[in-house]
């Protein structure tokens, strides 16, 4: 775990620290540069000038899973890709979040056959699902804001 494992409960100190840390995490959540299909195109569109995600501290798509906090699964996950995806998730240091972008990775979407994992939450725990095929960049950003709300409410003792 991150800072949480080193912390006992110091009452008010913990709460303020909690607020500061959550603040920093929601302001600087670095996504991993990890595209799978059509949705990756819209994810890149959200990175580009028009829907500039650097406003939310996502300026740097981290290429290395070691440095990323958020895995945006953009596109359907094939059976062959699933173990790789889980390994990438393991390589990310805690705390880490997963956002399932689009139908295919949320629940298989239109593909329900032998080759597709019916929902990436069969492989890794997912925090936020964004519907759409693919979602607009605004939709993706809305999903990210939903995730931020979720993270802001987190407590230190829930972390570890």
């Amino acid at each position, binding site marked *: 775990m991150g800072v949480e494992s080193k912390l006992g409960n110091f009452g008010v100190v913990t709460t303020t620290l909690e607020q500061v840390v959550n603040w920093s995490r929601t302001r600087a959540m670095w996504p991993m540069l990890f595209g799978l299909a*059509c949705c990756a195109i*819209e994810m890149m569109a959200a990175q580009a000038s028009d829907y500039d995600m650097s406003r939310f501290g996502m300026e740097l798509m981290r290429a290395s899973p070691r440095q990323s906090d958020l895995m945006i699964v953009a596109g359907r996950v094939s059976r062959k890709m699933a173990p790789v995806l889980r390994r990438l998730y393991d390589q990310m240091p805690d705390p880490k979040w997963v956002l399932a972008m689009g139908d295919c990775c949320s629940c298989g979407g239109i593909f329900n056959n032998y080759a597709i994992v019916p929902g990436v939450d069969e*492989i890794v725990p997912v925090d936020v699902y964004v519907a759409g095929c693919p979602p607009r960049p605004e939709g993706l950003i809305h999903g990210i804001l939903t995730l931020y709300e979720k993270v802001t409410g987190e407590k230190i003792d829930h972390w570890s």
Partner: protein
Amino acid sequence: MMEKKIMDETFTVPIGPQHPALKEPSHFRITVDGEIVTNAVVRLGYAHRGIEKAVEGRNWIQNLYMLERICGICSHIHATAYCLGVEQLAGVEVPPRAQAIRVLTAELERIHSHFLWVGVAAHEAGFDTLFMYIWRDRETVMDLLETLSGNRVNYSVNILGGVKFDINEEQADAIRKGLDYLEERTNHYLDVVSNDAMFLQRTSGIGVMTRNQAEVLGTVGPTARASNVARDVRVEAPYGAYFDYPANIVLEERGDLTARFVVRIKELFESYRLIRLILDTLPSGDLETRMPRRIKEGETVCRVEAPRGELFYFIKSNGTDMPERIKIRTPTICNMTSVVKLVIGHQLADVPMILVGIDPCFSCNDRMVILDRSDGYKQQWTWEALRQHGIDYYHEQHS
């Protein structure tokens, strides 16, 4: 040089399945000596979706939406190829207005795809400013497509026997206005990719493919045309409205990355011309003809020119309301061999550029997945094992 001393032994740099240079999963094993690539192996199948099997379980109309989702960039052209094939089988004549609108959408899609590619390639070259500008201007096309069809990526403009949407006058004006802006910008980008000396350093003379190579390796589309191979389905075997609106072929001599940039950017002008022509002389008439629910028995092939090159469909019907077999061959799989050949002898830093030079679309090209490999590697995941390996593991951890 320094590197040689430190890493004298050759080792393999794995690129993928997850790698910043790849926007979609695929796997390359690059054997480098210092920084020089000595061998490259490509391994596909990470984006295999079993679509060819899945379409056999849906009726003809539902397959339209299924096949549209083969590719997130060139979705319309997939649907068009499928529709053309099915209409051939059913012996249905599509009204000219519908055909014109199909071609118009296809050309708009070509514009968006080429813009996207130039941006991505600039990003690979480490020229993020160009990436930002290109994608900013690409939004114009996306808005036009959204105005036209109501969606940014999977337009679902086609329906069997026609198109779903009409174009009214104000939309036509919007498209014209957008094209004027894009044309001006495109001139600017053509100037950049052919004059910016720093950019040329990364592109000119890199990944040179001679005309002979291009023909032997069976490349298609802009990749081939950049090596002066006159290969364009719109010209050599026109389909749909391309009879009435003939397209001109764009060729380049050099065959290096610069040529691939220039070819694609010059094709944009061709698309602008076609779209304006279609908008000015849009034939009147209704948008669709009646299609039978069951397609009569038979089989057919259908070739169209996707933004990346020739797209091939084989469709077999057994007289029911579901296809018996649909085989798809996408342009990327034809061009993939050229990458493996071309990277050898280049710097490691050039590999992403050369790879992206063919405009790869891995979700397109993964039509099959190997279960039994020759080297005896036989790891196969049953669904239960995968689930156990995945979410169950984390649930145990948290409980």
